[in-house]
């Protein structure tokens, strides 16, 4: 590992060569910045991974059952496990998706599940991302580059190769492809924060990168428009366009990023849409609380991975606790994402706490509160002091749901920009690490 650290400059040159970037909007202006890479990997021992794999698979399966149920019979609501307010009043619930059964009955083909490891070693789930989770490309590139720069490192460490992600993805996309059509990765365009990843995954999977104008729906079938009016049938769309912009005739009518009547083609089963529209209901911050209950309800299994201890002010008991303990909790606005709308009680003064309490009391459904988890620091290289520092880090694990559920043996480890910060979102500064999963003995 020391050689890897010594080769830091060489690694960075390679990353620049790949153009590993993500876009951010600052003051309304689009910038692309390099995503800082820290060469010290997060290492997950084989036994620990085996457990994580089971827990993540279980979670992805339960979430899929939930989505199938919510867009049809809603047994889980009828049986009183989840209050209907959490469905019907949630932004992520899309009535336009009712009674559409996706090909192969899979909704969350790609889940990005964010976890942290507590000081005692226990893994805890922070949130599930079932809409268009991004970030898988970074560890692939990090590994590609570090193996180039320091091949010897990998002679001494038995690490599962993570460069197989595009192959796993391709296999999954092919599995759902309808009518042996073209597979496309559908991007909102180069000014999207994850455009780099869209084009990179297209390159590595051999899928066609499609922009809004490239796809048309005729006779409830999706076609890619080639030269000279050539039309090629599309069988699978790995879309990176958000639900609300996906089809201007079904959702936001002003969307210029979408494909008109895509939902008609999808409803008729003429094309696979990956991930399925409507998944937002399952990764709503208010719903995360119920995932362990879903596991018991749908799978009749004991949940393996716990949630971060969460309270829903919607329930009077929880509300009482939250209002009494606001100063030690972290409070999240369920309508926000990307590290926005997250408030740590300990960072607020008395007036701010009062204001927050009033907001919670006025609209309890809009908020969740969690205990602050003291999660493990990871070592990072810094440019000051002795060159080593500690940062909070999370892990986004990727679960692919094809003919079987597979957890990719790696993941995106993101660390916070500041030494004591708990916010690890890339849009809030910070960088990433490779995630090494040790091979089984």
């Amino acid at each position, binding site marked *: 590992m020391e050689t890897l650290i010594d080769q830091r400059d060489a690694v960075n040159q390679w990353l620049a060569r790949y153009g590993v970037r993500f876009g951010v909007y600052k003051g309304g202006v689009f910038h692309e910045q390099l995503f800082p890479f820290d060469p010290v990997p997060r290492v997950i021992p084989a036994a620990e991974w085996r457990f994580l794999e089971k827990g993540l698979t279980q979670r992805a399966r339960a979430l899929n059952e939930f989505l199938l149920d919510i867009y049809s019979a809603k047994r889980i609501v009828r049986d009183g496990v989840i209050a209907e307010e959490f469905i*019907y*009043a949630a932004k992520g619930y899309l*009535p*336009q998706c009712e009674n559409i059964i996706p090909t192969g009955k899979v909704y969350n083909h790609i889940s990005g599940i964010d976890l942290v490891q507590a000081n005692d070693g226990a893994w805890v789930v922070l949130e599930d991302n079932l809409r268009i989770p991004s970030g898988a490309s970074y560890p692939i590139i990090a590994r590609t580059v570090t193996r180039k720069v320091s091949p010897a490192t990998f002679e001494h460490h038995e690490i599962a190769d993570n460069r197989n992600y595009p192959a796993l993805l391709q296999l999954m996309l092919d599995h759902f492809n309808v009518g042996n059509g073209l597979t496309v990765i559908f991007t909102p365009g180069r000014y999207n924060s994850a455009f780099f990843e869209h084009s990179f995954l297209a390159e590595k999977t051999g899928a066609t990168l499609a922009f809004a104008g490239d796809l*048309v*729906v005729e006779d409830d079938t999706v076609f890619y428009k080639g030269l000279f009016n050539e039309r090629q049938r599309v069988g699978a769309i790995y879309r990176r366009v958000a639900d609300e912009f996906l089809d201007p*005739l079904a959702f936001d009518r002003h969307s210029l990023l979408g494909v*008109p009547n895509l939902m008609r083609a999808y409803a008729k089963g003429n094309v696979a849409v990956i991930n399925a529209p409507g998944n937002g209901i399952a990764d709503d911050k208010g719903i995360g609380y119920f995932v362990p209950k879903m596991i018991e309800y749908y799978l009749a299994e004991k949940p393996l991975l716990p949630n971060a201890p969460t309270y829903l002010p919607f329930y009077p008991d929880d509300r009482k606790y939250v209002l009494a303990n606001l100063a030690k909790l972290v409070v999240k606005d369920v309508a926000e994402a990307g590290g926005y709308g997250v408030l740590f009680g300990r960072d607020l003064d008395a007036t701010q706490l009062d204001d927050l309490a009033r907001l919670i009391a006025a609209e309890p459904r809009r908020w969740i509160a969690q205990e602050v988890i003291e999660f493990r620091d990871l070592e990072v290289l810094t440019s000051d002091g002795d060159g080593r520092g500690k940062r909070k880090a999370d892990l986004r694990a990727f679960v692919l749901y094809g003919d079987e559920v597979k957890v990719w043996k790696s993941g995106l480890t993101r660390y916070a920009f500041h030494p004591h910060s708990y916010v690890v979102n890339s849009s809030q500064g910070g960088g990433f690490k490779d995630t090494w999963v040790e091979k089984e003995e």
Partner: protein
Amino acid sequence: MKYATYNYSIRVDFLRPVHSHFFLLRCTPSHNAAQHVVREKCRVDGARLTRGKDSFGNLVHSGAWVTAHDSFEVQTSGEVQLMNEYRLPDAAPNRLYLYPSAYTQPDKKMTQLLKTAAIEKADAPTVVVEKLCALVRREMDYAANSTTNATTAAAALAEGRGVCQDFAHLLIAWARLAGVPARYAVGFIEGEGNTHAWVEFYDANGWRGVDPTHNRFIDTGYIKLAHGRDYEDCSIERGVFAGAAEQKLTVNLSVGMRDYFLGWGNGN
């Protein structure tokens, strides 16, 4: 029992040709307990249509017209047998219809006015709706062209006037606040030059119709094309295209009601 025939057309003339025109239509009635569709036809010259159902169960036609054109006309016609009673059996209502939607988001004025409707806890849904209709009539004047398709219930109430769409949205918003599931319905009635909007509310094992614009419960005479949370779910014609934005819309509707069946050879 009545036999209703309808002839409806929507014509859009574009100042300059447009192309890559994609559209979704909800302009054909489908079968339900209150209406039996005897025959129906929908066409757009120049475009091929496909049929399907949306997630609310409404009949939709989708289509594409890729090449350049400077006009677009939807022609739809048919005959519907209307029952004497507007009642749609449903063992349990979709509880979605108890929650505010984009057009029916309540505001302070709405919640305050609701208190003046004198609704009692024991009131049956029909009584609640009757009182709410009276409230709508009290607060709203009918004024053609006073609002737009984008006007919400709250905005219309603030103005104190509106058209059938606004009356329906306001009644829906209030009914939902009062705990009665309510949904938006759109279709044809006799004697109007364009489509009409009304409300369906849930009352003991089924949906009943109420027309707040005419301040009456519905028995017969209403041909339904679509229902949903609000106007947004029930667009008769929704389209996107590339090209000039300037356009002229011409709508024609004729509805005939008879007490007898005309037979297959007539009409269209």
